[in-house]
């Protein structure tokens, strides 16, 4: 089923509300990178991912690897909206015994294909999924979401080089280029200079989009789907904390929860009438 742009935007808005609620309830977690990635997740699942919520372990499903596994509230919100888990499950975020562990975990949550939380691991894992799909003669693909801080890990570039060497057209990356990492802006922690040129030099197909413009997001997903001569990367320019004014572009909300007052403001900005 194809969704209109408006429907995808509405899906993302609903997810944003759940992200804020989860982090508020837990009084911990990572809202910034969840809010920056959510339009991309909505676009990916709404137009491209071949998955079955009633059969999450379906062998020939596309794989999605949230390599920046701390941005789990975004993933959980989406999985709830798409019926992989219930909205009730979202209250288990960071709660003992809950399916919604602090970082996405394939042993705990249906629809999660990789146990993440340690940065720089997901692209290698995704490459493994892509190689296996080829060996199986399967059409399935591996999509990997990376953070921009995350690509400072050397292991990302080991995988980037290897994926191009093996001409893995079924390996697709989305880079959440929100310009902020844990302690501060990337610019002060570790400058990365020309990111698109780096991936091109590693032999990847590269496209850049505005990661909050749903038309461009959908075009980006098409680019990933249709580019099959080697690995491809969609570099999405985003705003960390997008949709909640005081979180936007604010390093303090990488890993911090809103207080009561901020929570009320965030919900009203996201169109929740109490």
């Amino acid at each position, binding site marked *: 089923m194809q969704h209109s742009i408006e429907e995808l935007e509405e899906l993302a808005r609903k997810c944003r509300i759940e992200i804020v609620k989860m982090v508020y309830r*837990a009084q*911990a*977690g990572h809202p910034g990178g969840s809010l920056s990635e959510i339009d991309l997740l909505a676009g990916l699942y709404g137009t491209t991912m071949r998955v079955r919520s009633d059969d999450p372990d379906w062998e020939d499903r596309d794989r999605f690897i949230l390599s920046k*596994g701390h941005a789990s509230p975004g993933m959980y919100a989406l999985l709830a909206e798409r019926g992989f888990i219930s909205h009730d499950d979202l209250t288990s975020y*960071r*709660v*003992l*015994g*809950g399916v919604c*562990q*602090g*970082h996405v*975990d394939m042993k*705990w949550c249906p629809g999660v294909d990789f*146990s*993440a*939380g*340690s*940065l*720089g691991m997901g692209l290698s894992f995704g490459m493994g999924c892509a190689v296996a799909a080829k060996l199986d003669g399967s059409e399935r693909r591996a999509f990997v979401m990376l953070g921009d*801080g*995350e690509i*400072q*890990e*050397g292991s990302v570039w080991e995988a980037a080089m290897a994926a191009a060497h093996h001409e893995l057209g079924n390996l697709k990356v989305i880079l959440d280029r929100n310009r902020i*990492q*844990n*302690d501060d802006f990337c610019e*002060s*922690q*570790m400058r990365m200079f020309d990111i698109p040129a780096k991936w091109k030099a590693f032999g990847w197909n590269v496209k850049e989009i505005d990661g909050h413009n749903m038309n461009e997001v959908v075009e980006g997903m098409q680019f990933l789907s249709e580019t099959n001569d080697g690995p491809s990367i969609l570099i999405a320019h985003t705003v960390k904390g997008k949709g909640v004014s005081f979180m936007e572009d604010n390093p303090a909300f990488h890993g911090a929860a809103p207080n009561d007052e901020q929570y009320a403001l965030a919900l009203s900005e996201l169109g929740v009438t109490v």
Partner: protein
Amino acid sequence: MAATRDGYGQALLELADNEKVVVLEADLGKSTKSLHFRKAYPERTVSCGIGEQNMLLVAAGMASSGYIPFASTFAIFTERAFEQMRNGVARPNLAVHLCGSHGGTHTGTDGSSAQSIEDLAIYRTLPNVTVMHPSDEVSTRILTKRLASSSNPSYMRTARNKTPVLYDDVSEDTIQIGKGIELKSGSDVAIIACGVLVSEALKAADMLANEGIQATVVDMHTIKPLDTTLIDNVAERCGCIVTAEDHSIIGGLGGAVAEHLSMTSSTPLERVGVKDRFGESGQSDEMLELMELSAPHIRNAVHRAINRK
């Protein structure tokens, strides 16, 4: 109550008078508490981005050039650079001081990917490396400062969450690398603990006192070199030993004590630790309960040890 990671951050500031002291970060300075040093001495702080392997060897290069590097990240992410630590730091015996914060399941709701329960074990296998896991903010501060004059590399684990302050009015001399501290003396059992479980061990000792059992409690903040003199001493006096750590039952403090005792005596030993499993998301106190590490579990282990005398 205070967090040991704050003791680390404070110590770095106090060490800054020595111009050879440098700090290396991997995008977790806010968490490990090296951020205070970075703010005050940006020119002596090297940001390595999210790149732990690079950080360790940059530190090694600086140590070989006469600097005293303190590098930190979460305990779990230091492990990514284990081989760098082994081949580039320990083997040439370069005095790089690696601090892993947020160690153990006590770290809490981040979940199993962030809860290192094997760091003490792996670093303990490296020749030349001092391995420590202090129990409170004060001892962490003092021990970190002592490291600056050590000629060996080190690994120190600190904790994310607050625990009781145990050494508020103690003279600094009592806190020395490689010397366990006897916090309580009794003759029925010796509880040897490290890190966040030292205060749990003290609670267990109080429970046991109500049952008429007098426990010795040792803060074994240094896992390597191990204070074997003190272990032999309490083994002889108490006749049985319980170890307690927020770490795998395999290879950490309990493993180190077991290795020693197996050569010197037949003293019964019970080990309290994470029983060869991974953690999960939960609050610190819930984790200590789930992993069977809290005071009542230490007390139960004491009963088992005494029964084996």
